[in-house]
């Protein structure tokens, strides 16, 4: 039952700018919640409102990007606090993979725990991909974890970078502790069957 992640296929969202922090991703007032579920609605809420008041449209409000699952960012994305709410909010919005020039370390780790791969590209490539998306928002891309490339159809656009051990965790599904634990389901049942108190219950 390990959730192996080898490919993410979908349209993309370009989000330009360096040092976009976790407070911008999900403003602190949305942290008081029963479930992480609602966070998707509030992702980038303040940034989106600000863009609106200036008469422009934030990429997360752009009707053509609405179904985007691949987020393309620039430098030091996700800096700030350690809260899991930021990647949770992005994931709940529908983001399944993030391509960027670099990521804040804790944010990267939190994304890994949620099964959202963060892949690095060079500055030029990031800009190139963002432009491609803007030119044709409906285009489908493939983030291929097995050969670490970004593809459009069968054409490779550029290589993607990710540490080998992290790549392995996504490909094998071991990024997910729950998955590792679930793998031992027959052993779990064995232990359960020999625990005396379970048979009296």
């Amino acid at each position: 039952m390990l959730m192996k992640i080898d490919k993410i296929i979908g349209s993309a969202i370009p989000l330009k700018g360096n040092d976009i922090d976790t407070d911008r991703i999900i403003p602190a007032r949305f942290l008081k919640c029963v479930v992480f579920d609602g966070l998707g609605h509030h992702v980038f809420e303040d940034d989106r409102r600000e863009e609106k008041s200036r008469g422009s449209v934030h990429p997360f409000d752009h009707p053509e990007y609405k179904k985007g699952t691949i987020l393309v960012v620039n430098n030091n994305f996700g800096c700030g606090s350690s809260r899991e709410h930021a990647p949770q909010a992005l994931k709940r919005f529908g983001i399944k993979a993030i391509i960027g020039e670099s990521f804040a370390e804790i944010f990267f780790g939190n994304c890994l725990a949620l099964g959202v791969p963060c892949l690095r590209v060079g500055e030029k490539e990031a800009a190139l991909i963002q432009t491609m998306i803007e030119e044709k928002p409906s285009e489908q891309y493939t983030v291929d974890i097995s050969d670490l490339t970004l593809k459009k159809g069968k054409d490779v656009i550029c290589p993607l970078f990710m540490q080998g051990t992290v790549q392995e965790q996504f490909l094998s599904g071991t990024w997910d502790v729950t998955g590792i634990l679930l793998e031992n389901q027959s052993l779990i049942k064995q232990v359960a069957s020999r625990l005396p108190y379970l048979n009296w219950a």
Partner: protein
Amino acid sequence: MGKTLYEKVLEIHTVAKLPSGHLQLFVGTQLLHEVTSPQAFAMIRERDLKVLYPSRNFATADHIIPTTSYQRPFADTVAEEMMQALEKNTADFRIRFFDLEKEEGGIVHVIGPEQGITQPGMTITCGDSHTSTHGAFGAIAFGIGTSQIRDVLATQTLSMEPLKVRQVRIEGKLNPGVYAKDVILFVINKLGVKGGVGYAYEFAGSTIEAMNMEERMTICNMAIEAGARVGYVNPDQKTYDYLKGKPYAPKDKDWDKAVSFYESVRTDPDARFDDTVVFQASSIEPMVTWGITPGQSVAVTGNIPLAASVPPGEQKLFKEALEYMSFTEGTPILGTPVDVAFIGSCTNGRLSDLEAAAEIVRGHQVKKGMLALVVPGSQKIKRQAEQMGLHTIFKEAGFEWREAGCSLCLAMNPDQLKGKQISASSSNRNFKGRQGSPTGRTLLMSPAMVACASIYGVVSDVRELIQERKK
């Protein structure tokens, strides 16, 4: 070489050794409450996972419950939302929910033992650090985070690193007016609030053996305040007598088998501990915390320490505590004015705690101007106490007699200190702001000592009142 109970229980619950080197441990019982479980259930839904053993999970609502009235919907909309989430989650995943409306609710660490869910030799987890309470029955019980709650829901297992075991032995007879709470506050004072990090504490010795189950629960409850995630007492006849006949206890022909299993997990006489410490019961007096950690305590007749007597590493915390509490070094704790008296919590909200407090309060009046609360640990305890007439004693003295819940222990409900109020509290934590006011102050003590403080309006020595009564 013999084994400790901790080693034996871990052994029979080990599913596998994981590539990370941690153990995959089977969790016999998971207890759930409204604050830390909703995100875990959300993760289960999101991943389309199942709850592997619904019958090994039990839920109750306690942290956010208003204790003036259970009337729904709760005035606090977030509390109502959390309550509804728990109701929905337990219904959707077929998990037994101990319902307030059916008068079977209460604090999670009170109802586990009350229902006979908590049993010797079992592993128990809950998204709450005071899960160590259940160790009083010879279970290995510990608090976990939300992602681990998810893991236990989905697999009934979790990944964990084994602990070392320190035997904390207390020998001899306790003096009158000295209770289990004083013993554990004493131990925390001596071993430090971080002393137990990496350890399970096995509480043993003649003092512990002489204690009833509720006293043992008070001891194990606060193991976590000593830094130990796990605290336990070896099961004995008292454990079995308490458990027998409880709704979830083994029945009929299973009972004898159960007792031999319980006996088999007891620490062997030749077991080796990673460390052993011994204290004499006779040296323990009624204890009161004066600071902002449960380790900052003195005997009720003692003085707040002098800065000169505090080790260099603790100077900063010492100064911070004095400043926060507005206390002066070297002054007696006796006579410190208190504004609020709180009797309750998973540490000291059980029937024998209420009895001990009522015995002190009987025939006295709460000092004018003080707020005094009794919040039973469960609805069952509340009913039992009412049958015994304890509520009348408390109410006649000027206490408020509330519905069960966590209440002022952590002030997630409307029960909160105001401003710099000082609370004499039978709860477990005196952290800054713990009781609801960012500047509120908490003095931890036994329920009898809280009762005594409520009568005089100042920190008082309960032994004097007991002496007085004997005359």
